[in-house]
């Protein structure tokens, strides 16, 4: 079994062409990256606004909770049936999957953003106001930098989920690493499936590692040592499936 997987993975034929591993990897990254970017553009400002003003929290928390409960497969099928006839070309294959992934990514990213801002030490906020900062300056110079660890944590959790879920997009006729899983399943070629699953897991880990490095450079060094105590409150746990606290060992 393991030999077959290794053989599949090392077969040069599987590393070239539009159906080779590099091409599928590229497609996978493209779908996931695009979905995460769209989700971040929508969710981070919304989360920051909620955290900053304290308004709309109830509504958004509940909406995000419900969004998280939407089964991806069902939403994907619904979007395909609904949108496919309305779109043309390759976009028709891409958009339904993209919507599913964006819906999946928004709740953890938004939760990270508002929990991060909400969790900022009131004393720091008051001090900033006392120094004469305007509301937007407080947000930009104090709250966002302080919230960065949790914003990253939400984003990383979203990235892991999106990279994993991009696989089921292959059911809707897209490419990506999910092709190896679906095609392997249809012809019961286990090595292909295992290799596909391994590639997805490795990709998820690599992306997470990259984000961890980015986080370390982006987050103010003054923060990383002290965030541990706060990181264990339930509010933080609720951020996402694979929540990352600022790992004390790593910093």
């Amino acid at each position: 079994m393991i030999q077959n997987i290794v053989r599949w993975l090392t077969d040069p034929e599987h590393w070239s062409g539009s159906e080779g591993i590099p091409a599928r990897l590229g497609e996978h990254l493209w779908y996931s990256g695009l979905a995460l970017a769209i989700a971040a553009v929508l969710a981070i400002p919304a989360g920051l606004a909620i955290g900053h003003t304290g308004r709309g929290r109830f509504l958004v928390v509940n909406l995000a909770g419900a969004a998280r409960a939407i089964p991806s497969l069902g939403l994907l099928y619904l979007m395909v049936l609904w949108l496919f006839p309305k779109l043309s070309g390759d976009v028709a294959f891409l958009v339904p999957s993209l919507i599913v992934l964006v819906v999946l990514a928004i709740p953890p990213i938004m939760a990270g953003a508002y929990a991060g801002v909400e969790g900022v030490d009131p004393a720091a906020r008051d001090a900033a106001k006392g120094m004469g900062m305007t509301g937007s300056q407080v947000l930009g110079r104090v709250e966002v930098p302080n919230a960065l660890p949790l914003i990253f944590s939400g984003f990383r959790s979203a990235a892991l989920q999106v990279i994993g879920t991009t696989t089921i997009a292959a059911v809707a006729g897209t490419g990506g690493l999910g092709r190896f899983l679906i095609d392997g399943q249809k012809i019961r070629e286990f090595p292909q499936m295992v290799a596909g699953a391994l590639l997805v897991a490795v990709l998820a880990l690599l992306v997470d590692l990259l984000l961890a490095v980015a986080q370390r450079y982006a987050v103010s060094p003054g923060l990383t040592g002290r965030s541990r105590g706060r990181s264990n409150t339930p509010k933080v746990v609720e951020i996402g499936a694979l929540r990352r606290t600022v790992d004390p060992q790593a910093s």
Partner: protein
Amino acid sequence: MKLSKITLSIATVAALMGAAACGNSGNDPLSTSSSSSSGGSSSGGLTVGSADFPESALLAEIYAGALEAKGVKVAKKLNIGAREAYIPALKDGSIDLIPEYTGVLTQYFNKSAKATDSDGVYAELKAALPATLTVLDKSAAEDKDALVMKKSKADELGVKSIADLASKSKNLTAGGPPEWKTRLTGLPGFKKIYGVEFKTFRALDAGGPLTVQALKNGQIDAGDLFTTDPNIPANGFVALEDPKSMFAAQNVVPLITKSKSNPTIEGALNAVSAKLDTATLTALLTQVVVDKKDASVVAKDFLSKSGLA
């Protein structure tokens, strides 16, 4: 340091997998109580399966209804997947009976099968089946894979049969189930039998909504649909002729585990096959796919009207 961390992580995962394996390989009480719809296969009853497309589910419902009418205890496990998934399910006893099609089933067990006519295929099929499985009488109802194009596109290219595509296919995109990439009744067959090679192939579904929509919207030029599919006339598609019979005869036939079969079961299923022909099957399928009726309701209706239940 880093490496040992990774090793430990992997060991952890492995240990857990091992634990899971041990925990479930023995006499797990969950396995029998877990599915409310199963439980028939061990107690003298029969578990009927189906592939993951509506016609297969419909036929499975018809088989199940006919058997129940004869007092056979039936459990259903429908929508399993492609042939490559449900044949192993037959072999490991997860299911005992499934509606099949003579041609593709023969190809599955005998890659070098030659016959293309209905009786020849049936004879080859009987010879090719593994010892534990058998097929009962074939019905007159036939549902072939077909390479389908928009009529307008086919007219524009002047294409009537798959053979006509040979000189034009280099610029065309084909779509079909993922398994078409490797099956002889797929891309390798087009190339070998007709010299047809497409520019690209898009993995979609087995004659499902993706293929229909992709054909309709022009994302693919030719796609795999089934000849009984009501979508073909409804959308102005044409099924290309297959002069070299690449898609061999595809009569509907019950595939059953030998040890589970008995004269009552055979009688009930052969009676069903005797009543089924292509027109009847197409009409029944239209009720499911176009009128959105439940397969079980359509099956029941058919059985009572034809005096089978």
